[in-house]
Structure formats: structure tokens, C-alpha cells
């Protein structure tokens, strides 16, 4: 099977990329192709990169509190280009009720601080297999 392609991006202005980098390295070690976009990305930059790179998954790490503005915009931009099939997941400092609201808005699962990277890897693997089974 081909490798899963994942875009790991840091939306917003906070510079805390420790989590994003740990996740990027963990996904690579799990055999995925990880495209890392760096810090301070706008939703437009993230959606453009996701579409150009034809990724399966977008992983967002956000700790600045701007998640309710930035994540829905990424979803909208992907949908505008017909790519609502891309899984948008991620984590950071996001209160539970906001996570629920975002998941209802169309993201995949969102993970809180302290989640082992293995949990994210497993989640992406399972999602990908389910999708491949569906389209096959």
C-alpha cells in the first residue's frame, strides 16, 4: 500500500512547535510521508499546501486560542476546492466544548495535551484503512 500523506501545520501566530515536530517525527516513524509547513501559517497557506500536496490528512497543532477562527476556515477552504474528503485532525490547547463544536463542524478527532503520539498514529491508520476499504 502507498504511504499515507499528512500535512503537519501550525496555524496562527504562536511559536510553540514542539508538539507539531514531535507529531511529525512520530508520523514519519510510523511510515507516513509528512509534509511540514513550518510556523505561523494562515488557513489559506494550509489549505493551498494540502491541495497541492494531495494529502490524505491535515494535522493542525494550535495553542494560541484562535482555534475557533482558524480551523473552521481551513475546513471551508478545503471544501471550496472540493477536498472535504481530506481528514482534518490535530490538537493543542482546545477546551473540550470547543473540540466538540469543531468535530461537529467537520473535523476528525482532536487531541488534548498529553495524548501519546501512538494514539494519533493509530487513529490516522484506522481512518485511512476504513476509507480505502470504502473506496475500493
Amino acid at each position: 500500500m502507498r504511504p499515507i500523506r499528512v500535512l503537519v501545520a501550525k496555524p496562527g501566530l504562536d511559536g510553540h512547535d514542539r508538539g507539531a515536530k514531535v507529531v511529525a517525527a512520530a508520523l514519519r516513524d510510523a511510515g507516513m510521508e509528512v509534509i511540514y509547513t513550518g510556523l505561523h501559517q494562515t488557513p489559506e497557506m494550509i489549505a493551498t499546501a494540502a491541495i497541492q500536496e494531495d494529502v490524505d490528512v491535515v494535522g493542525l497543532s494550535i495553542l494560541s486560542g484562535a482555534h475557533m477562527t482558524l480551523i473552521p476556515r481551513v475546513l471551508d477552504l478545503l471544501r471550496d476546492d472540493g477536498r472535504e474528503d481530506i481528514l482534518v485532525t490535530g490538537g493543542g490547547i482546545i477546551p473540550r466544548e470547543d473540540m466538540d463544536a469543531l468535530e461537529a463542524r467537520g473535523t476528525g478527532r482532536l487531541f488534548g495535551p498529553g495524548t501519546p503520539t501512538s494514539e494519533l498514529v493509530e487513529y490516522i491508520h484506522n481512518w485511512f484503512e476504513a476509507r480505502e476499504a470504502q473506496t475500493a
Partner: protein
Amino acid sequence: MTTAEMLELDRLREEVAQWRARFDAATKRNALFANSGHVVEPLYTALDIAGDAAAAEVPGEFPFTRGIHPTGYRGKLWTMRQFAGFGTAPETNARYKYLLSQGQTGLSVAFDFPTLMGYDSDHPRSEGEVGKCGVAISSLADMETLFEGIPLDKVSVSMTINGPAVILFAFYVAAAEKQGAVAAELRGTIQNDILKEYMAQHAWVYPIEPALRLIVDNFAWSAEHVPLWNTISISGYHIREAGATAAQELAFTLADGFTYVERGIARGLDVDDFAPRLSFFWDIHNDFFEEIAKLRAARRIWARHMRERFGAKDTRSLIMRFHSQTAGVTLTAQQPMNNIVRVAYQAMAAVLGGTQSLHTNSMDETLALPTEQAVEVALRTQQVLAYETGVPNVADPLGGSYYVEALTDKLESEAEALFTKIEEVGGVVRGLETGWLQRQISESSSRQQWEVEQRRRTIVGVNDFVTDEGELTIPLLKVGAEAEREQRSRMAAMRASRDDALVKLRLAALRDAAKTDANLMPLILDCARAYCTLYEIRAAMEEVFGAYREPVFF
């Protein structure tokens, strides 16, 4: 050493060997490691500090291992300085007045991310972020509001700002002028430590060289105009939070400090003119004794290097004054009440290490900005430590402890070894350009993550002693979109009322001066007085300096 002392040591050596045999027979446990990775022995004795000079040291004397004041905390307690800021300037102003009324003794401004990056609240990149993680300050007008009714010649104020630090500092000085305060009486600190931004925290604006120029400009200007102001807070905090070990935090931060001193001297400044205003900022992590030893080692290394390497003569250039903050990275979202306990131990380590000021984190900070109740518990934690435990009664109470003295020496030698490595890669600036420093931190970070995931390192409530109840059981502070709307309308009003011609003139003057070697501080201050905004000033210099682009290192 006298013969009697040597015989005594021989006897001890024998006893320790016997004890070791009994210990090994009785325990099967594997070696334990400190956060920095070195082995922690099960017992320390006089053998571990034989010939150690520190045991003979007293507080307030070179090399200041045991503290910078001869009086310890009896002369002056540490400053309880809670980092705070959210939403708009009026909201944060109200919070400051509350904190001062509760017995807090200094203010510490947390800016929102747009401000930290040099964007105005009405800049498109600020959308969704205004006031979220700190207060939004886009011009002198906001700064005036932030300190309305708080006399700036009476209260010491610390500002966590780096990339655009000189601009915010200019707003502050201009706001103080408007209050009628005398510049020479202003007390406080701007963080202004750009090297650690490239290394770890990432709130940069300009490339390395022009950024260093602005810092030295400020050293020179401040020595003349605001002599009591701390022009920089050389910060290990963010380096540690990004994943460094205690030894790396110690070494990289001090190496940053030495780099600033070198740059100041290279500008032609006398080291004793600016070094007394350099201050430090440390992260206080979980490994109790290692953190105390780190602070003791830091003071000793700084004093020695300043005297021996840079020829400083003024005692104030030799002493390391520092602020401490309990480690945000140790807070857990799981069972958040446990964080109160972590913070209390960390606060005690900071005090036993001789900190000059302290921020204690609130239990909910891994989830959101702290609620008023959580902040109060954090402040009370310091007050209990100060007034109930008796810990501050004796200066450096752990001085002479076999373990703490040995660990202090150990951290000092680890730091010296890292200084040598930094020299080998060409110094701090070169090490940042090639990514060597970033990679060291990143490797430590990955290793710690791995240890936690492999359960080689226990985090209570996260990878052990886990409960099934809901992940979150405390109320959270929510900053809504109103702050952003309000801030935008404040900006619009300010822009409408200012003298646009003057704004253009002042910005053009700054831009022109940036192309020369002139000290930019007076020109930035003139911009601030004319109500040029943060982004306008940032952009004027960016036209000349360019912007920093992130290199990628994993």
C-alpha cells in the same frame, strides 16, 4: 588537606564501600537518572564534595553560589510577580488593580500573539488571536490605558516581549512620560532576548544581526536614560519548555548572555555600564534538587565568566539576578488539580535556589488562560511558602548538602562542556544558523516524549495513576470575540484622531536611520509619541532589515 582529614576521608571511603555492597545486595532497582540524563547516586557523602570550595562560601560573596544578597531573604523577600494579561487594555488594567490589591508586589505583562509578533490588532494576520493569550497593545494609546491609575514610577513592571521589544518599550516609556513619571525612576524589565526566540520560542521579527543591533541600541540608550531598567531578561524558560534538559537550559542561556555581552563590548560600551542591567529568567521543572543546583551553578558560572572573561569589575555586573517561573510544560490537562501540588514544589525549589522574583503557574494553564480563582491559588501558594513554611528564614539552607553541592558542580561542568561545544560549532549565532542548537533541544525533547510514552518517566495522572473520570473538572476562562471587535474599534478611533502627517514623517525618519549606524531607540520613541502603531514601526524597519525566515530542523 591535613593528614587527619585525609585519614578521615579514607575511613569514610571504606564505610561507603561497605554500605554500597549492602545497598547492591538489597536492591535490584535500575539506575535512576536526573532530568539531564546523568545518573543519580543513591547516597552522597563528604567524598563527593571533597576539596569543594563552595562549602566555604558565604552568601553575597563571589562567586555567589549561595546567593547574591548577604541577607538572603531576610533583607527582602522575592517579588511575587504573576504574569497576566488578556483581552483589551481596559480589562487587563482591571486585573492588575485586583492583583495589586491582593498583595502582589510587581506586574508582569502577557501580550497576545499578534503583539508578540509585531502585528496590530486590526492586521489581517491577527484575526482570531486578538487578546486570546494576553493583552493586545498596538500603540501608545493602548499602553496608556493598560496602566491608567497605576503609577509607573512606583510599580515595577516586567514585559514579556522580544521580536518587537524595543517598540513596546518605547510605548511604555512614552506612557510613563504622559503620566509625568521621571524616566530615571522607571523600574522593570523587558525580556528582549531574541537569541532564545530563534532557538526555541519563535516570536521573531527581523533576521539575527539587525535584531542584535536593536538590542545593543537599547543597552546603550537605557544606560543613559533609564538606569534602573533591566534591558534584557536572558531566558532559559522557553529553551527548557521547548524540551531542553536542565544542563542545556543552563548552558544555552548563559551562552546567549555571553553573546549579548560580547556584542555590547564590540559596540564600544564599557561592560560595567550595561552588564548590571542584564537579568535572567529560569524555568523551574520537576526535578527538585537538580533545579536548585541549576540556579546555584548559574550564579557561579556567570560571576566567573563576567570577571575572568569579560573583565567586569563592578559587583553588580557579576551578580546574576533572575526571575523564575514554574514550568508550564509540567502541567497536565489530566487531573488538573494535581498541578497545584507540582507548582508548590517547583516554587519551593525556586526559592531554595535564591530567585529574586517568581511566577507560579495556575492549575488550569494547560487548558486556557487562568481563571481569577486559579490565579489566586497560585499567588497564595507563594504566600504560604513565604510566610508559613519558614523556608526563607535561612540563606541558601541547602548549601553544604553533599548532594546539592555535588549536583551544583556537576551542572557547572556539564555547562562548561556545552560551552566548548558551542565554540566548536562557531558560537551561538553560527549554531543557530546551522541549526545545531535547535537540533540539540529537539533531540532532548523527542527523548523525553519517548520516555513518557514508554512509561520510563512517570507523570501522575497521565501515564500512571490514571482515572476514568472526565478529563476536565475545573471551570475555564473564555476570551470571546468581543475583545477583538472592541480592540478594532479602539484602533479605528486612535487612527482617526492622530496627526497622519507627523506619523509619516516619523516613520520615514526611522526608516532612513535604520540604513545608518545610528542608535534607533530615540527614533522609535518619537514614532511611539506620534501614535505610530506597532505594525507601522515594525514595517518601517522591516523594509531595511528584512524578515527572519524559519529554518527547519527536526
